[in-house]
């Protein structure tokens, strides 16, 4: 518990403080437990032999451990191909929407121009787009412009799915940053864009993190469009299709599915940790130079 109050010199005070913080820590522990249990169950299932996966008395810790499911998952045909496809499509879509969304959000939050209201409304309506039902029109358009079976089509669709969200959230974040900060920098000789980049962008880091994570997870998980738009060129299939490949007429190989899901969830975590570092350094340098 010492971690919560490393800098309290007097012992008794730290005990009191500890007691006062007990409900807080209990709440934190509960949050962690509730969040992690399903995740833990997924990961631990991946290590159980198939016959232990469903049992009348649950095994919270596997009696026997096996790597067999991971072997099955990794050895599934096209494993490496699916990964690189998913990465390309997802990263492409996220970066596109970050760059374009950030520009639009800045224009909306910081500038006055005719049509701004209409644009904001359009973005919100775009957020409501019924993508499950747009799949048929998108398919028809892609077919008529010879864009079926291409990863670029998927990238563009995912870009469009995440763009409204990115714009809306970044606009909210930019609005909370006092413009005076940028103005001060402009007084110090920065251009408007330079001021934004040096002052606002580092402050935006949590917002950028949240939006890119969102975009990443959305695009990374998407199945319906990946299934519908990639038809004959199977080399262009993405990971969610791989996740569904452990199913046959006799049911689903749950061990392999969970092993695959575990591997599948790792990149999102990786992206988070990666952005984390940039957030820190961005904030630090922003503080020093600002």
């Amino acid at each position, binding site marked *: 518990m010492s971690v919560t109050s490393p800098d309290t010199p007097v012992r008794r005070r730290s005990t009191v403080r500890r007691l006062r913080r007990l409900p807080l820590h209990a709440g934190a522990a509960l949050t962690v437990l509730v969040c992690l249990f399903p995740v833990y169950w997924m990961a631990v299932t991946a290590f159980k032999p*198939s*016959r232990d*996966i469903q049992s009348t008395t649950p095994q919270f810790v596997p009696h026997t451990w096996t790597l067999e499911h991971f072997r099955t998952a990794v050895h599934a045909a096209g494993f490496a191909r699916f990964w690189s496809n998913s990465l*390309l499509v997802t990263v492409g879509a996220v970066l596109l929407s970050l760059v374009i969304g950030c520009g639009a959000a800045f224009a909306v939050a910081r500038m006055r121009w005719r049509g701004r209201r209409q644009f904001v409304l359009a973005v919100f309506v775009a957020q409501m787009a019924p993508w499950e039902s747009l799949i048929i029109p998108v398919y028809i358009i892609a077919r008529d412009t010879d864009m079926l079976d291409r*990863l670029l089509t998927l990238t563009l669709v995912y870009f469009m799915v995440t763009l409204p969200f990115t714009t809306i959230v970044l606009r909210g974040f930019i609005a909370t940053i006092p413009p005076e900060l940028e103005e001060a920098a402009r007084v110090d000789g920065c251009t408007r864009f330079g001021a934004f980049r040096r002052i606002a962008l580092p402050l935006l880091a949590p917002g950028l993190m949240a939006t890119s994570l969102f975009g990443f997870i959305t695009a990374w998980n998407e199945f319906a469009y990946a299934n*519908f738009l990639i038809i004959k060129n199977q080399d*262009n299939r993405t990971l969610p299709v791989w996740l569904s490949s452990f199913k046959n007429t006799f049911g689903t190989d749950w061990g392999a599915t969970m092993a695959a899901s575990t591997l599948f969830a790792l990149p999102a975590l990786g992206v988070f940790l990666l952005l984390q570092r940039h957030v820190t350094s961005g904030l630090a*340098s922003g503080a020093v130079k600002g």
Partner: protein
Amino acid sequence: MKFRLPTSASVIVLTAALLVSGCSSGSDDAAGGGAGGGTSELTVWLMRDSVSAAFQKEFTTAFAATHPDIRLKVQIQEWDGIGQKVTAALASNDAPDVIEIGNTQVAQYAQSGGLLDLSDKKTDLGGATWLRGLAEPGAWEGKQYGIPYYAANRVVIYRKDLVRQAGVDPTAIKTRDQWLAATGKLNKGDQQGIYLTGQTWYALAGFIWDEGGDLAVQRDGKWQGALDTPQALAGMEFYQRLQALGKGPKDADEANPPQAEVMAKGKVAQIIATPGGANVVTEQNPQLKGKLGFFPIPGKSADKPGAVFTGGSDLVIPAASQHQDAAYTFVKELTGDTWQKKLALAMSYVPNKTSLASAVASDPGAAAMAAGAAQGHATPNTPGWAAVEAENPIKDYMTAVLTGGDIKREAAKTSEEVTRAMNSAS
């Protein structure tokens, strides 16, 4: 500024992404070219695990030897989202050349105008002795679009050792009453007489057919759900009695968890599955090797086995295929007698023609299946049936009855839902 790095990196990655996607699709277009003379590349869609890897290899090697002008490319499709995938393929400009479609799904595609009419090839393919349960759904308004590929139906897989311990003679189980009595004897302690999940609706369909009922009937050209007929109710009552002789979950189907895995755990005396399910059981639990036996699902009387649902697949050629002649060559080979016999033995299937039934006599599982196959039925042959399966109100009906719902009221309600679903599509 640290953000400059990711931004410039992003541009590179993005460009790379666009280039790669552009390249791969470009090369694919080039490959599709030679439709006329020379070699043509034939793309075939088969379902996951519908053929074993060994069989696929044997077939492709032999096919390449006899047809050097056709480059065969087999693509394995996943079950998840296959309906949408086939729809997308049929509507595209460059469709795969042969597609395997489940026999309950093929009617809607046959009606859609997206398939090549193969009526004039029927004699050439030996259509006279095709299994009805496969040939009928592949036909629409007198034209044949789907070519029977293979069939499978459910049998009872039982544990020889447990049956012996309980003093039951499985060969003597010929009627439903005998089956219930034997299952009751097997159901003791923590051993389950039968593991039958609440939503195994193919099994229920069999019991209903036995009673002379059906899932849906056509009246005045309009399909109507028929689960509330006295015959159908009797079928459901039998299901309820049988289901109670084990601990199958009432609100799940046989795939969740896979019933073969449950049996592999060792305390289940019987399951209802296709004979191939036995391989899954022994794969999970090698100790059960040699301990699994088969018998056809018993009927109402001893003179004939119970009615079963004929599952299986048809092969179709999309109208948008660019290599229709080569595609036909492939279909003719795979549905021909030579490969059908091999396939049936390798996969424990029923071959696509009644004339080939003897091919599987040596395999106990397939033999039990073939005995049952004589009483094979299909789901209602209308495009609307796929809509019923997609929502599957029958599963909800079974769960409702098994958990104490009023059977007559639930049946009437479900019949209405089936009627609505079937007619919403047509």
